[in-house]
């Protein structure tokens, strides 16, 4: 059985739901027995992106917001590779939103998994594109003024053929199933994983 773990112990906060995503990905890669030499994971910058150090697979730990176009480049250069993006709501829905839309329109066969905790947590808790209107954060002490991005509706609007899923990290088995379905899907797919930040997300409970 292929080992998909590096020797580095994950550094997420105790109780963080990033562990659920990490376990779900490990389970899926093992269950589907993907060719390790032909599997490339592109990580965005953010808490979930730190998974780069904890996985044994070809990878790019890209720049913040640029994981999706980087993955597009890999897939275009070598269509035989399985390409998976792991990022957060800040990188994928904020800094890199136009790239997400472009990749969905292209219907390129990559999987984008987003740990959506509605916050910028690696930078200690500022509002993100999915923070609900009115929520107070360190960067929005008077409350968020924008309405949030709704990722599934957005993807369906730009490309009805794309697979878009939304699952809560509070249900780890469903996370496993959704990751498996996403990785198996031919064409573009987005998996939006709802989660709560244990360190900076009190106001979102």
């Amino acid at each position, binding site marked *: 059985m292929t080992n998909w773990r*590096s020797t*580095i112990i994950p550094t997420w906060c105790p109780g963080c739901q990033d562990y659920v995503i990490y376990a779900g990905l490990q389970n899926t890669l093992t269950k589907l027995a993907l060719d*390790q*030499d*032909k*599997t*490339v994971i*592109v990580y965005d*910058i953010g808490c979930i992106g*730190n998974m*780069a*150090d904890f996985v*044994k*697979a*070809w*990878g*790019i*730990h*890209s*720049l913040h917001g*640029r994981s999706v*176009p*980087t*993955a*597009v*480049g*890999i*897939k*275009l*250069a*070598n269509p*035989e*590779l399985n390409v998976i993006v792991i990022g957060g709501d800040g990188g994928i829905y904020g800094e890199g939103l*136009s*790239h997400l*839309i*472009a990749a969905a329109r292209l219907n390129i066969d990559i999987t984008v998994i987003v740990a959506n905790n509605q916050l910028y947590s690696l930078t200690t808790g500022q509002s993100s594109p999915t923070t609900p209107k009115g929520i107070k954060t360190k960067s929005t002490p008077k409350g968020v003024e924008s309405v949030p991005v709704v990722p599934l509706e957005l993807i369906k609007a730009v490309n009805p053929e794309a697979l878009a899923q939304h699952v809560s990290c509070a249900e780890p088995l469903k996370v496993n199933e959704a990751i498996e379905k996403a990785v198996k899907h031919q064409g573009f797919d987005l998996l939006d994983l709802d989660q709560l930040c244990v360190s900076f997300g009190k106001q979102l409970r």
Partner: protein
Amino acid sequence: MEKTWSVKIAGPAGTGIKSIGLLLAQILNESGYFLKDYSEYPSLVRGGHNTYQVTFSADEVYSVHKMVDIFVSLVPGHWQEHQKEFSKDTSVFADNDGKINLPLGEMCGQLGSTIYGNTISLGLICYLIDIDKDKAKIIVGKYFGEDSPNLDAFEAGWQWGENNCQKLAVDKGKNTKKMIIVDGNEATGWGLHKAGLDMFVAYPMTPATGVLHFLAKNQDEFKMKVVHPEDEIAVASIASGASMAGARTAVGTSGGGFALMTETISFDAQAGLGVVYFLSQRPGPATGMPTWTSQGDLLFAVHSGHGEFPKAVLAPGDQEEAFELGKLSLNLANKFDIPVIMLSDKNLSESSANTTDFEKEKEEKIESLKPKPGKGQKIKLYNSYEHNDEGFSIEEAEESKKVVELRLKKINEILKEMPKVNLFGSDRAKKIIVSWGSTKGAILEALKEMPNKEEFAFLQIRGMWPIDPKIGQIISAFSERILIENNAMAQLETLLKSQMTIDFTKRILKYDGRPFFPEEIKEALND
């Protein structure tokens, strides 16, 4: 030395100036002449004032001239702003507009459409410079179609010339080597292709777009992929991802697009991914003057990207060098797994010359040794964080210091592979001209014609970064040192002074969006 001749055609956008310009260049090429061309146009699609000019000779020519021998205004009102380019011998043709009266409107009327003014003018020009008519008509027929009324238009222009003008005393072309007509962008595309380019990624931006068009058109024949994504940030990121997956990759843009790519230049250097950034300069800041020329991004290119890291910046001076350095850029990017920037400008990118047939040149390919997925190699993470050998993030003091030093050690190795300077003229000359990029042509053309040319040597720098510190000794050996740049802030001087002891006794700078013409350089040198 045979005389050089210059022809200029002017009129609004949409009157077919570019097509007959290219036809004229082709006819001259096939008649054994050497040529350089240049066109000016505003940033719009219809109307305005466009020009095409070509300078040719039976001997080698390095640049277009400012002064013209034949001028044609395709519609009335387009010669007036060019009066400084006319001498007493210039033949200026215009339709009932105070110059030699070429009745283009009336002749078009006889041919049944207003669109033939350009081809009529081409026929006249070919008559004046005594081209083999049958040869010219074959080229015109190939372009427009054998039964196109454009052939009648060409004939009408030629006949009008016979009835109204004397032929000019143009020496016959004598070059028999097969040459092709390419502009700097196409030459760059050929160079990248001959170094085994697998993927070209670009978002359109004048004056770099020609590379995108050329490679997109030829992608099947060249067995490569061309991608035009949502913005320049995606362009650079896609290129980095493709490079990681093992593709030989380049991108193309101008200053504004390059600004968006700089975070990725830094990423490439950190992760160890080779990508060529083709940067064709135009005047900034911001949108600036999109269709004009400048050498204003040298320091931007050299300093592009946050952090301290190795990169290479190369600057070809003409179409032949755009091919050579295009090839070298892609090989350097792959040999050292670094970002490589190739600097052009509007004057080189969009001007044509007749060159070696690049298609016949051999492919030269240096492979990257970095591990790639799918080839059974040891798995690696390509990381934007500081990292160890396997690619995992590190922050420890000793270890991070070591990897910084390891990365910077590449710089000396890169320097050994950079293109050498070109030194023209004698090293015993009294004065040295120092320049870079597309000013090469105007400087060589000026020196060709100067009676006191033995006084001058000319140093053309092509490896801009890392820069050879020995350049300082070469320059300092001359008693007068003259800097020529197509920018306002003498950026090459700043760059040289940051790396070596050097001073210039004279600076010739031009920053009005126009390239240098040899006449201006002659005058400034003798000033």
